[in-house]
């Protein structure tokens, strides 16, 4: 697909000295791309830059032929953006506001606009409550309304920043399905701190922390890379410090009073450990803990 997002040497330092992004380079082809990282990793800064709302200090972002920093106007014509945290005009009905945004998105034909608005409201399951003032919407409903706006105009680049945070499980599934379907013919970038969001849907992903990209990969090969290196055992709580000291601990989980630990090791660390199938969470933790990065600075897996 020729429509490709290319981020090169992007840096951003806030006036208070926080280095939000440091020399970030990424290439994002069509399909769904997951940006995984803890809170404060720089995800939202990157997402806002992609959404034309912030300017990098250095570096370039290109969407196909478009320069996102310089050609904001053109980018916005193909852009859909769902911010991490947003409000709505409280005293406007949902359908009225969505129609307003449809006009802003350039859908000027009345009939087509009505059709799109209706379809989106149905899609986001807000059709029944379309006449309600947005002030009365719950957090989840508001989130879905935001999605409806983001999807107006059939964006080529869709940026969704932590979209599943406020959704209940059913809504989350529904929403992610929607996103993956959109990813079939556009670039969808999903930032999240929930590993499952990425593992279930994304064709490509990156892990970001402290403003740096730690891993850029396809989820399945990344997981495959860990094959045979993830081990698990159940320990008593007081044994935990020792394990932490002796092994590359990936994660711990409480299991009926005892603790299940997963460690990363090229060989079986001790007989008490047994091998398990790695998953993306293991990849994430090992990248975050720096175990995954031993073989290179920024990892390019199965590129």
């Amino acid at each position, binding site marked *: 697909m020729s429509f490709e997002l290319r981020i090169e040497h992007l840096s951003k330092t806030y*006036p208070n000295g926080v280095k939000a992004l440091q020399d970030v380079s990424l290439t994002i082809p069509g399909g769904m791309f997951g940006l995984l990282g803890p809170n404060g990793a720089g995800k939202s800064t990157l997402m*806002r830059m992609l*959404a*034309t*709302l*912030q300017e990098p200090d250095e570096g370039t972002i290109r969407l196909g032929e478009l320069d996102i920093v310089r050609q904001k*106007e053109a980018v*916005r*014509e193909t*852009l859909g*953006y*769902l*911010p991490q*945290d*947003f*409000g*709505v*005009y*409280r*005293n406007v009905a949902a359908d009225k506001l969505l129609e*307003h*945004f449809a006009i*802003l*998105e*350039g*859908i*000027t*034909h009345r009939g*087509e*606009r009505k*059709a*799109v608005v209706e*379809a989106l409201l*149905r*899609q986001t*399951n807000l059709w*029944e*409550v379309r006449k309600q*003032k*947005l*002030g*009365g919407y*719950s957090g*989840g*409903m508001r989130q879905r309304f*935001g999605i409806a*706006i*983001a*999807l107006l*105009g*059939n964006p080529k680049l869709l940026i969704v920043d932590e979209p599943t945070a406020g959704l*209940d499980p*059913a*809504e989350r*599934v*529904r929403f992610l*399905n*929607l996103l993956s*379907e*959109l990813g079939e013919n556009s670039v969808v970038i999903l930032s999240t701190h929930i590993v499952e969001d990425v593992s279930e849907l994304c064709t490509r992903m990156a892990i970001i922390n402290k403003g740096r990209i730690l891993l850029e990969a396809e989820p399945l090969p990344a997981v495959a890379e860990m094959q045979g290196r993830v081990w698990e055992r159940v320990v008593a709580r007081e044994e935990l410090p020792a394990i932490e000291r002796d092994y590359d601990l990936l994660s711990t989980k409480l299991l009926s009073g005892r603790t299940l630990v997963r460690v990363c090791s090229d060989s079986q660390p001790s007989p008490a450990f047994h091998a398990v199938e790695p998953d993306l969470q293991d990849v994430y933790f090992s990248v975050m803990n720096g175990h995954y990065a031993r073989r290179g600075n920024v990892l390019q897996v199965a590129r």
Partner: protein
Amino acid sequence: MTKTWEVFRFELGFQMSRVSTRIYFALFLSLALLMSFAIYMDARHDGYFFNAPIVTSLITIITSMVSLLVTSGVAGDAATRDGQVRIDSLLYTTPLRKASYLAGRFLGAFAVTALLLLAVPLGLLLATRVPGIDPAALGPLHVEAYLTSYFLFALPNAFLATAVLFSLATISRSAVTAYAGAAVLFFSAFITEGFIGAKLGKWGLAKLLDPLGYTPLHALWMSFNTLQKNTLLIPLDQTLLSNRLLWIGVAIAVLAIAHLRFRFAYATGGRTWRRTAVSEETPAIRWTGLTIPAARRVFGPATRLRQMRAVAMRSFRELVMSKAWLLVPLTAILFVSTAAEVLEVELGTPGAATTARVAEVLAAGELARMIAILIAISAGELVWRERDARMNAIADVTPVPEWLSFLGKFLALGLMLALTEAIFLASGVGVQWMMGFAPLVDLGLYVKTLFGFQLIGFLLFAALAMVIHVLVNQKYVANVLAILAYVALQMARELGVEHNLLLYGGAPEWTYSQMNGFGPQLTAWGWFTFYWSGWALLFGVVTYLFWMRGEERGLRTRLAFARRRLTRGPAAAGALALAIIAGAGGFVFYNTNVLNRYSTDAEQEEWRAEYERRYGRYASLPQPLLAATKLRVDFQPQRGSAEIRGSYRLENRSNTAIDTIHLVTSPSVETSGVTFDRPSRVTLHDQDFAYRIYSLGKPIQPGESVHVNFAVRHAPRGFTNRGRSDAVVGNGSWIQHRAEQAHGARQWLPFVGYQTSRELSNPGARRKLGLRERKDIPPLEDVAARSDPRGREKIALETIIGTDAEQTGVAPGELRRTWSENGRRYFHYITDAPITNSYAIYSARYAVQRAKWRDVDIEILHHPAHTRNLGRMLQSVRASLDYHTRHYSPYPHRQLRLVEYPSTGRGLGLTSFPGLIEYSEAFALVRPEDDARKIDFPFAVMGHEMGHQWWGHQLMPALVEGAPVLSESLAWYSAMMVIEETHGREHLMRLVDIMRSEFLAPHMTAEVPLMRTFDRFDAYRVGPFAMYAMRESVGEEQVNAALRTMLAKYDPARTPFPTTLDLYRELRAVTPPAKHALLKDLFEEITFWNLRTKKAHARPAGNGTYRLTLEIDAEKLKGNALGRERPVPMHDTIVVAAFDAAGKTIYRQEHPIRSGAQTITITVPGAPARAGLDPDHALLDRRPEDNDVATGFSPSPAG
């Protein structure tokens, strides 16, 4: 309690740490300094201390009114911030009690406001330390004054405002409501003073009801003279104390209500009583696949237009649905319900509801001020709309260019203003319809005034408000800045900035007269406004360049954005703006400063000072006096120009020969062709100061005359900073000559000799410019002044007026001939008896109403449509001629003309010249028939002007203290007699009651005795009542005899001229010795009576008679120059009267009354219903309503 403290501490800390708080502090500080500076100029001018205690309090109170804006921000924020940053759900679940939460937040906001207001005393103190201050304007430091100001005004006001605004915002959960509340509080001060006080005359109530205490303080200010201002602290009297306590009480009550209404729970949308409960259904998990139909997206000009419409309409809807906008319809309703009062003229007489007048009120100061505030706040709401809703990230990524968002929102603001004007228009039509003026509704005129002048002015301000909001990028701070900008523009004149090219939106005021339409100001207004529209366009470009989009708020980034946005389009618009500014500005400047002479107020003062410095030494140089004037006046109404050729006959009435003649010409015309009928040469011709000296080849011997010819040309070029001269206009030209006042735009003729009236009179201004101190008015004892004939000569006047064929020219005297020549009409007037050297000349398309009184021809020259009050005026003229000729002296002329002239506003503007009385359009249109009090106002006022045909024109007072008593007081007194004779005593009493009610309005209490007064209030109110009291006491014929003697003794052609001393002597001559004390009380001293009948009790005494017992209380007070009053023992004879149930007088007798409580028992010939002392209120009593009471009865005869 600790929790309250915790919340309080947090709130205070949070607010104090904000940048905006510091900016507000700086703003208050500079506002106090600025106002101090403005007052300083005024104080220095008027001779009081600019740091006088009352000034300190006034500035404090005005700043605290302005601070309402900040308070609404602080309080609104404190009340709604939690909801806005969505921490509310978190907060409401902490174990925090509602009361602690609210109390903490409120106290925090209050403390912030209180601390901010400390900037005011600080600023005021700083102002006194500015180097270079005139020590004469700086009074001693009164620490108490600052403490009183802060603790009596600033702090309680902050408490009230914070309480009300915090509660409003808390209950409505919207900060905008706080703004609306602030506006209501702000304007209530003006409503209480302007309406309840000034209009309804209920000053006691007004002083109590003013929530911010402005009315009582301002009333005090009005009643203070210079000495009081400089020495007195604000007295914490009952009035002020009850006002303050009442409103602190209200504040507490409001807080209690807020506490009750506030629900400590997550705010759901909608209003509490119509909450939209939205069901939270679980969506189907089944995924149906993406089924969004493809929609075409087009980005062409048509789309831009559609998007602009969408942005504009959505924003417009938001604006007019906001609570702040409710002010507009509310104001319209308020206007409709109070229009009758607003349109009243003097003495509460119903005024005309013509379209021009109604539109003028709608466009007037208070309403415009309110709209300006609305514009500033609305601009902020528009600029911040997305960010306030936290929807900015979503809106900012839509493919809509910045210019479109900006223009769309500006359009919304324009639509809101247009809707506002439409509502005002509708309310104006409603008012006219209600008041029976429906046939006079002129929609075209409404559109021109409201949608033309006013809307354009508002749009200019809207552009300024927008650019401030976008550049400052801090909503509350920008609100305050925008409003301050508006206030500063309003105050600019006081601060010494006068040129309209420097005052954003400034232009000469538009005026409208029924006779002459918009007149000559339109062109000037248009050019100035075009010039300012260039600035507005420039502001628009700047607004676009700095329009906020995205998350980058740093100054450097915004500058970079601006540079990037400065592409060809905006650059072209900016260039166009600059071209307009330069082009129109240049043209305006050429008109105001090159074609015409531009001078500031200060420069004009300096001009007058220099005039005095240069030529003051000629003030007492003997000069010939004017004996006759011949004029040929040629009006060119369509061109706005005129030419006069004239000649004076000057007589040497001194006893020395005169060989030089000084001529003082008018700066507003070109004077040329000065020739004498004997050899002469110019020895001095000072163009700048319009002063010329001619040496005569042969001196004028005593008793000899000389003729001087001159030509005067008035041809205004272009326009000035104040517009164009409206002396000669299409319809309704008029010029004047007034001996006592040698400066004025309509006074074109040369004066002979140095003119003292051109000197600066204000003592402060004189001191400032280093002129010697002089008494404004010579003292009563100044014998030389009493005999000064200058300006008091009697002349013969011959006038030929040439004007357009369809116009009538009017001048004093008999119309000898009228003819047509070359398509123009000419009128030749000659006076039939000498007149004072004050007259006016008119030309307009007049209709004439003619009548006769004996051999006197009466003519009313009026605008054809203005026939409403002709009958009343005519009746008044006849009745006055009747009464005055019968009691005083013959009327010296064979004609009397009343002439209407074009005017705007509600000023009545009547002036009496010998044989000619001019009146304004507003007077022509008053509606006495709609006066519920049944007072024939036109009759009364015309009667007063008719009185001047005797008192002023025949009896010409010396220009010393007390002079206006001989003209104004006597003219009102004799008018009262005419009213009584024509309309009866009841009618007169009704009028007198109304006139007396003005005593209750704040006015200077520190006075000089009537004999020495020069005060307007004394002359028009106190004087006539004193004369009336004398008449009640000694009889009408006696008083009239005294006045007759005055006229007979003082032939106006001879000096010395009469003074109040002579009036006093003549009145004394007709007063029995027992009443001499009263005469002294009334004229020589300042005396108030406090007469009260506590109880009246009657019992039958047989034969239908009753024994009536009155329990009374009497007090007599003497005032002094400081306004202090002290009781004196009273030994007066005062009328005791009783009335039956029908209101008929059944007893009226003078009784000796002493000070204190006493009882009077009298026998009356019928059943008394009311009884009491001085029922006609002849004596000055500030509580006249308790003079008499209803009578109580005993059932059986006295046993």
